[in-house]
């Protein structure tokens, strides 16, 4: 982890091919996406690649079928929708105007593609344009040839400068530097104390000669900090300044003096991801008066769409260097233009979903789940409960389902979902004995009555829960028997690096998988080896001869196997073992 610098969690690799929103990211993300789409296929007819914006565009394009080229009127209607979408994402108006003009131009000339419907095609153009602007000039922190490198942080009040100073210091320290924090925010009460605590948490040194609270001269403190760093051989100096309004000429003047005193190598503007239309004015004002070299987006862990990113980059032409995504000192990421683009367009943020899942489950839990699948173990009601609790931890189900691409049609239905429903389901499962949780088929009438009493629900609720499991299991079997991926045309190359690896792993273990095609497309045509084509796992019955439990096991392991390449030997092991 240390080597790749800003890794968030172990699973993140960074590739940077723009394209589909999930093209570039987490190894496993593609598989995950594919898996969900697979699992969800029965629920979602005609999966669309993009949600919100594309739903809206789809309405515009209803009558467009069969046309070879988008007409000007079509494009105008589309551009209007894009404009609204961008405005709702807080992209500043002048930027929206400029942007939509460019999209319009491109869309007019575009051939209607066969693979994508017109709505998707336009969204793709928009996405590409967004990535182009946001990622056009991504770069890393520039370090001075002659240390110390001086980094000056500036921004509005409450943008997150002080916290960022700590995160940046920790990041640099981990990269082998000797950062020094300089407390030049002498305005806000106890900002100096805050930075001292942060320095301690980040394990770095701090230069704070003045107590703050309106006492002391920030220019002198900043200058002193750089001199101190030179004397003590610190190679990076991070100067935290007070938050200020761009129209406050006195404070902006002071910031200029600080800049002149320390001659920063990087002047970073810290921008709150939640900022609205004011982003442009702020960015321009800071750029004009002190000259910024880069931008840091803070509070990206919220659910703001973050149109400000586009606004700021467009008007200043300066790259976004980092994204600040949490309250821990380690919550600093390099900026991903493509993810930001998807987020601004509200295109089902799969990656955020993965990340929040990572946060909700510790590595032990994920390892156990992965182990279960790898070894072909059954997914029990116990696991189901664990997952459900994790789901609850991640926030409302409505939100989570909403993050998935292609769930647009379900959104209206799930809008009214009461999250307490999760508690009720949990109560039912918790009222079961361990044996019952391991095997739902032993649930006879009296057991069900007891469970219902225990959970405080009607027996019918217990019945429904069990029935759903069984139904879902059947569905999964059918799907697996089909072997294909219904509803997934146009999914580009399903074979991610990670998945291939998982497959190889399986292959090594099984000694069978090696024969399988490395080409995912071919593989999906080939009948899965080592796995009965029609009714998979008739053996997945417990010794009692009763069918194995349910929905979840079916849904997950089947979907994953289908995706990961099956794990024949392991399955045999499992079956024999049982």
């Amino acid at each position, binding site marked *: 982890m*240390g080597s790749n610098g800003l890794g968030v969690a172990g*699973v993140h690799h960074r590739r940077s091919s723009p394209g589909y929103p999930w093209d570039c990211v987490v*190894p496993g*993300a593609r598989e*995950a996406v594919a*898996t*969900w789409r697979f699992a969800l296929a029965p629920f979602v007819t005609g999966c669309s690649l993009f949600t919100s914006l594309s739903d809206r565009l789809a309405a515009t394009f209803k009558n467009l079928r069969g046309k070879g080229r988008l007409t000007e009127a079509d494009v105008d209607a589309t551009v209007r929708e894009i404009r609204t979408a961008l405005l*709702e994402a*807080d992209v500043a108006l002048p930027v929206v105007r400029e942007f939509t003009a460019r999209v319009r131009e491109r869309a007019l000339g575009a051939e209607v593609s066969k693979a994508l419907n017109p709505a998707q095609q336009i969204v793709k153009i928009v996405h590409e344009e967004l990535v182009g602007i946001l990622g056009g000039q991504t770069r890393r922190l520039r370090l001075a040839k002659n240390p110390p490198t001086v980094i000056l942080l500036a921004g*509005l*009040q*409450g*943008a*997150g400068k002080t916290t960022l100073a700590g995160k940046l210091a920790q990041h640099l320290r*981990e990269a082998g530097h000797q950062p020094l924090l300089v407390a030049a925010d002498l305005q*806000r*009460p*106890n900002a100096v*104390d805050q930075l001292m*605590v942060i*320095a301690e948490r*980040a394990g*770095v040194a*701090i230069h704070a*000669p003045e107590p*703050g609270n309106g006492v002391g001269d920030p220019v002198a403190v900043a200058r002193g900090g750089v001199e101190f760093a030179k004397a003590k051989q610190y190679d990076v100096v991070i100067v935290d300044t007070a938050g200020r*309004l761009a*129209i406050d000429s006195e404070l902006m003047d002071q910031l200029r003096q600080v800049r002149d005193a320390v001659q920063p190598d990087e002047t970073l503007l810290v921008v*709150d991801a*939640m*900022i*609205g*239309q*004011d982003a442009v004015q*702020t960015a321009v*004002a800071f750029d004009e008066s002190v000259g910024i070299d880069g931008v840091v987006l803070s*509070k990206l862990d*919220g*659910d*703001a769409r973050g149109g400000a990113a586009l606004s700021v980059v467009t008007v200043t032409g300066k790259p976004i260097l980092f994204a600040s995504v949490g309250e821990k000192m380690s919550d600093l990421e390099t900026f991903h233009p493509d993810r930001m683009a998807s987020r601004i367009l509200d295109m089902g943020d799969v990656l955020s*979903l*993965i990340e929040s899942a990572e946060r909700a489950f510790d590595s032990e839990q*994920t*390892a156990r789940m*992965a*182990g279960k*699948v*790898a070894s072909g173990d059954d997914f029990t009601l116990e696991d*189901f409960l664990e997952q459900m609790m994790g789901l609850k931890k991640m*926030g409302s189900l409505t939100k*989570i*389902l909403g993050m998935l691409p292609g769930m647009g049609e379900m959104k209206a239905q799930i809008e009214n979902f009461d999250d307490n429903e999760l508690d009720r*389901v949990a109560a039912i499962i918790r009222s079961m004995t361990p044996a019952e949780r391991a095997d739902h088929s032993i649930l006879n009438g009296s057991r069900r009555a007891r469970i219902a009493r225990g959970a405080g629900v009607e027996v019918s609720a217990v019945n*429904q829960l069990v029935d759903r499991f069984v139904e*879902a299991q059947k569905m999964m079997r059918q799907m697996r028997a089909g072997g294909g991926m219904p509803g997934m045309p146009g999914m580009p190359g399903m074979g991610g690096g*990670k998945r291939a690896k998982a497959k190889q792993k399986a292959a090594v273990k099984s000694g069978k998988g090696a024969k399988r095609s490395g080409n995912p497309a071919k593989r999906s045509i080939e009948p899965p080896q080592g796995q009965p084509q029609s009714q998979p796992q008739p053996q997945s019955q417990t010794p009692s001869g009763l069918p194995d439990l349910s*929905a*979840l096991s079916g*849904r*997950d392991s089947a979907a994953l196997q289908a995706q990961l390449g099956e794990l024949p030997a392991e399955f045999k092991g499992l079956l024999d073992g049982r």
Partner: protein
Amino acid sequence: MSNLLEYVLIGVGILAAIVVVVGLARRAKARELGPSTREVISPSAPSTVRPDQVEPPLDQVQAPEPTAGRLERLRSRLARSNSALGQGLLALLVRDRLDAQTWDEVEETLLASDLGVGPTQELLAALKRRTMAEGVSDAASARALLRAELLALVDPTMDRRLATHTDENRPAVVLVVGVNGTGKTTTTGKLARVLVADGRTVVLGAADTFRAAAALQLQTWGGRVGAQVITGAEGADPAAVAFDAVRAGVEAGADVVLIDTAGRLHTKTGLMDELGKVKRVVEKQAPVDEVLLVLDATTGQNGLRQAQVFSEVVQITGIVLTKLDGTAKGGIVVAVQRELGVPVKLVGLGEGADDLAPFDPEAFVDALLD
């Protein structure tokens, strides 16, 4: 029920898939890196350099400026920050012809103030109707019309009084909540000054036990006006600190207890649950009379979402719109008011200790049109 169950199943299925994939990815990753790559951070003590470590000199207990003259300042500042909106609109409205392009421009002007798409279109529709019906052509009546419509959107009939009086023999309890960096602590400090200036006794509860030095920041504010500040250790249970603060308030016979909470993004379920707990625990002592959501005027459309989530968790009763002294227009509060029916009660106008004023819709709209 059956439909809902389906969604639970889908959700859990999805989640399980994610977890498995994440787990597999981590495994593979771990294998790649080998067992011993986990970075060990050397515990070398950071050198803390602070030549003259002096206590921050607390200002003398000051008598805050009376609240009366504040509206004037609000007006002048709003005039500075928002005149673009008012004048831009007027310039557009008094054109000879009100064609489609003009209306587009009006719409864009409104959108630029973070008003949001819904309220903008509502205002626009009303304006169109009325200009058509009344055949407006001169600046004065256009202005009157616009003022009326803007005012209707801001809704002056709402009760914007701060519930800081109780009939019972107990202090009024005010909880201050919001996302990170909106100015909760500053607002709490300023509000304490206002209350002290009005001759009330105030107890401050520093229930922000998370952010470094937040309690100190509140103590500085409390020290300035001579208010008692109840703090807990860093990382202490904020609900416990809030509980203690209210108890101290009851024991001291204080008039008002102000509780400052840690900033939290509304998307962090755990933190939102914690906030719910703070309120529930406080209510064991005394009912919470006022829950103020602090919204930053620079916040865009996400402000509405914030207000909705906070409202679900702690039933906000009022909004404080801070940083209105900048170029941001704070138009999002209109949407928030409309959606939640929760009025804006106070506005923050700067970093000065007395830069807090009651929100007056008339003055607000007048300032917009000045």
